[in-house]
């Protein structure tokens, strides 16, 4: 799979402790469609924020971004809105997991967050472990290999499906993978 390690563009900034009920209100969890979820992303903050979100590529936030529930749609809705990376001072752990597992780049860099201006450009090279804010470059600890593999596959399910089709899955899932392999190529697109 071809890998593009550098993602980014115009950013939209938020403060500390942005919770999952703000990112995607519980009433919309009946959907798992990224586009449909994206329509309601950040709805509590009003239409102007939503419009700006959809025009942005990067979400920049303060501490504890994505705190609250374990809902995976908090990440999916951002992907649906066209966000390619989230840069935060820190993440709630479940949001961080969900981001990796749905294929959304999420990096912690309090220094970068401080340097960012709302609406400015932010780029993330997650292989190099660098956040670029204008001319400034901020380093962060690159992803462990295991996480990067999942991220680059486009998320956990896409990764597993890909593994299954390669016949290289873990021992535990080998039986399952053999069944999955025949369908894997056709399902990859929909999974991602």
């Amino acid at each position, binding site marked *: 799979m071809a890998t593009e390690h550098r993602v980014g563009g115009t950013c939209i900034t938020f403060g500390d*402790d942005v*919770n*999952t*009920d*703000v990112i995607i*209100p*519980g*009433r919309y*969890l*009946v959907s*798992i469609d990224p586009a449909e979820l994206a329509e309601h992303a950040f*709805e*509590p903050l009003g239409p102007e924020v939503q419009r700006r979100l959809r025009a942005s590529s990067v979400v920049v936030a303060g*501490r*504890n971004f994505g*705190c*609250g*529930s*374990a*809902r*995976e749609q908090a*990440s999916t809705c951002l992907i649906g809105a066209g966000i390619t990376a989230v840069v935060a001072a*820190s*993440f*709630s*752990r*479940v949001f961080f*997991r*969900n981001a990796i*597992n*749905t294929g959304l780049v999420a990096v912690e860099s309090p220094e970068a967050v401080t340097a960012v201006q709302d609406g400015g450009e932010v780029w993330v090279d997650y292989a190099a472990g660098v956040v670029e804010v204008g001319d400034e470059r901020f380093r962060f600890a690159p992803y*462990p290999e*295991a*996480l990067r593999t999942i991220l680059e596959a486009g*998320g*956990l*399910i896409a990764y*597993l*499906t890909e593994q*299954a089709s390669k016949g290289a*899955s*873990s021992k*535990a*899932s080998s*039986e*399952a*993978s053999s*069944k*999955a392999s*025949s*369908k*894997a190529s056709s*399902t990859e697109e*929909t*999974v991602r």
Partner: protein
Amino acid sequence: MTKTFAQKALERASGETGLVPGQIVDAYPDLYMSHTASWRCIRTLERMGVDTLYDVDRIAMVMDHISPANSAKTAGDHRLCREFAERMGVSKFYDVNAGIAHVVLMENGHIRPGQLIIGTDSHSTIYGALGAFGTGVGFSEITAAWVTGKLWLRVPESIKIVIEGPLPPGTHPKDIMLRLIGDLTADGATYCSVEFHGSYVESLSVSERMTLCNLAMEMGAKNAFVPPDDVTRRYLADAGVEPDGYEELLPDAGAEYRQVVDLDGRALAPQIAVPHTVDNVVPVDEVAGTRLNQVFIGSCANAKYDDLVIAAEVLAGNKVAPGVRLIVTPASSTVMSKAASDGVLSTLIEAGATITNPGCGACAGNGGAMADGEVTLSTANRNFQGRMGSYQSQIYLSSPATAAASAIRGSITNPQDVLR
């Protein structure tokens, strides 16, 4: 090398030894809990084209968030789960009438000390009340675990919280936790394993320990833990778990903690979280008199049997104030049974409470929605903007005692003022 609970639990679940915080391991959970989100797992599995599961006996499904269905869509989602459970032989399937997943699974002996449990619910930290390692994940990870039996986990650092008691009358585990969340803030324990120790913790029932571990999530914890003891063992025996059916894991003396917090509960006043974050905590007296439209006694944090008893003690002989709706949602069918057997239910009914079916109820947005400008005092664990209806409504969080006292007065009230 001395180890924390988290190190021991993840060594057990990964088969590796000598784990240190920060390390990432492949761990094999003992149980994968999915609630109403189960249908998403099933759909994801369908898209993967897989129908062989790693170990169906480790799957637990509880239809708790929207129970019963309030739309044809949700009714269809529930049916999908029932049919899947039937077809795949998921024996730990609990339907819309069972109650809140966490409470149901603990009551039914599915959670045991030392186990690793993952759940599609952030408050899966609650399983620490029985000495297990519980943590929340997204539905894709549950699906992946169904197939592969494992997931990656970062070995967390640990925080040790030592609480001394007893607490003054009218104060409860919820008050302790709110104070702690207020002090440590909403991300004070992010990625960490939170261990509860001390004389106060030892004196608590499993139900009360559930309140501690549940709310640890609101500090960002990865998991929470109360050391198993005789209280734990009795609870497990009542739930039908054989004494040799589990392995208690205790942190070593001298284990390394990122932080040790000592909390003296003996002079604690009732606490309340004010809108719109859980760590925005003040003593109840500071906001006493705030008018309420609704009081909700429910959720995995505070709608267990003990919680209803506490509420009933305050409500006995009183009536809910005119203009206030008091909604009581027992956490589980078992809780409802107990309350109906000993007069607690009668007391609540006579006081004017609306008793709903067991489940997540208003906490998961299935009931108790508010209109613009309305105010609810809730015993649940989140007060985020818009979580209960309108974005222009407000949620306060408190103990069942404070909730009951406030329902009587129609405004936020220190329960000590009513009990006295």
